[in-house]
């Protein structure tokens, strides 16, 4: 963006139209899909239907729209709809928890670094840069392969793998959101009202909580939604590489299992792939909507 001034002056005439359009199609579709997926993830176990980890030996690899298996079954006889429901639980909750915790830690560190500056800021920036110097999939790959290490005799349990996966993803998320929070807090920290509050003798954490956090929050929220999308992608990639969650318990894991049967039961591949893609796209639309709203708010000031 070489010349910032020109587009800013020109925007008011055309912006509302763009925003309205965004809200009407993409935003509603995204909201409906996110609501649907969250509903599945939360109430999945109480919905009627076959169990996700029960194999139906009388109907192996049936196509979608079967009378008792609405989305068909895998070649091993697992119900696809039940699998996707349970997969939503793992994929969505793993991503949400990782982004929530990682985002909170990252934001806290980032904001305090921007506020206090000095050596603390220098060290934090350095650590963020080091963590960002390894592409996030490679970093989570390395972390997971070490933390979830198990030999054939003592395979790690599903619960342990999920916990380790979440920890790895948290470590990946911290610098991404931390850097955004720091950058945003740097801008707000030098505003007049912060200086005024300081001169009135307010405590540092009071200023951060009262004056900086509310202003930085929308930016973090917008990137947070995008981060949920990328964490879902990382989870899927890790599962495809065989070191994520095993046994078809998450969407990525279903893909990894179904990949070998692509010729005989393609729905084993395209259904989880589309679920992942739609969810990522929906979170991105949502994040973009939040970002646009934020731009609007800021331009009013």
């Amino acid at each position: 963006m070489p010349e910032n001034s020109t587009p800013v002056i020109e925007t008011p005439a055309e912006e509302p139209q763009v925003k309205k359009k965004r809200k009407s199609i993409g935003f509603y579709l995204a909201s409906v899909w996110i609501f649907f997926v969250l509903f599945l993830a939360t109430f999945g176990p109480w919905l009627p239907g076959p169990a996700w980890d029960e194999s139906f030996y009388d109907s192996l690899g049936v196509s979608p729209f079967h009378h008792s298996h609405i989305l068909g079954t895998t070649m091993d006889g697992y119900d696809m709809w039940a699998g996707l429901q349970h997969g939503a639980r793992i994929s969505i909750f793993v991503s949400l928890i990782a982004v929530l915790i990682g985002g909170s830690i990252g934001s806290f560190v980032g904001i305090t670094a921007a506020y206090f500056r000095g050596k603390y800021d220098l060290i934090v920036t350095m650590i963020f840069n080091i963590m960002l110097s390894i592409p996030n999939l490679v970093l989570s790959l390395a972390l997971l392969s070490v933390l979830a290490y198990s030999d054939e005799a003592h395979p790690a349990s599903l619960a342990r793998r999920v916990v380790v996966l979440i920890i790895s993803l948290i470590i990946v998320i911290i610098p991404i959101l931390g850097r955004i929070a720091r950058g945003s807090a740097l801008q707000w920290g030098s505003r007049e009202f912060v200086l005024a509050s300081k001169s009135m003798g307010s405590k540092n954490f009071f200023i951060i909580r009262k004056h900086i956090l509310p202003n930085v929050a929308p930016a973090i929220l917008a990137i947070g939604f995008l981060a949920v999308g990328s964490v879902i992608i990382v989870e899927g990639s890790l599962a495809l590489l065989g070191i994520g969650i095993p046994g078809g318990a998450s969407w990525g894991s279903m893909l990894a299992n179904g990949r070998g049967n692509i010729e005989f039961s393609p729905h084993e591949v395209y259904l989880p792939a589309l679920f992942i893609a739609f969810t990522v796209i929906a979170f991105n639309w949502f994040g973009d909507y939040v970002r646009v709203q934020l731009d609007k708010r800021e331009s009013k000031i």
Partner: protein
Amino acid sequence: MNIARQFLRRLVPMIAIVVIATFLLSLLMRLLPGDPAAIMVPNSPQEVRDQIAHETGLDRGLLGYYWKWLSGVLTGHFGKYYLNGGSREISTVIKDTLPITLLLILYAQIVALVIAIPLGLVSAYKEGKRFDKIASAVLFTTVSFPGFALALIFSLIFAVKLGWVDPIGYVHPTENFGEHIKLMILPVMSLALGLASGYTRLLRTDVIATLKDDYVTMAASKGISNRRVLWRHVFRPSSTTLLTSAALNMGGLIGGTIVIETIFVIPGIGFEIFYSIGARQIVAMQTLIALIAIGYVFFNTMVDLLTQITDPRTRERRA
């Protein structure tokens, strides 16, 4: 002189980052429970394990191990894969696999730019018209479509259902160029589509801003054809952001190729990382991941430096 100083100012933090990152990788590898040599070669006699531990420095403390690894990498001894039957030099593996990954990335970048440049220019030119609206909506969807989902759906449609290409495999370009291109189409497209969408959006925003510049109006009012104005007066200055972003993507793409190479069984460096993790080759894992990190940091620093040299506007703004 000025450039040399700029370079030096970036070199120091760059080296610091690389050193700390690789040290942390060493630490991570040492966190593995049990005897690392036994993890690499499970069913081997104690003498073999001791020898491996001595060779890799795994018998020393963390600092000793890191120093052994670092001095090895600096002198070109990248370590070995330890297999039950013998060992394989990591450096020869890198020599075999890295060019394939770079080729894959290069193809993906070219395809992405070939799609993005005309699309970005036209949608910026027709800003707000139907073409732009449809293109924007489609691109916003494809930009966030995960590469591996795309790869699997592509191979389902084009390889399994239509049978146009083989779903997996790789042929060297020198062996059979036609076959090479044919096998690369699906992996390249899976990587390129997301990239192209990102590039198009970037270029569109830039071109829209440039189109409002006075000299563009001037050029148009002189009666120069639209096509010429678009290419010569608008595209040239708008392309800096696009090319910077394309260059910055190189590092991240190496991460992205891991999954794509694994899905399409392309023997590149990503596939090699996948293999070394599966085979629990600690030294190889550490070296390969470290190389990606080094390449990534180095590339980003270089791009940053180059943009400052080529585009004086960024230099002034920072000063």
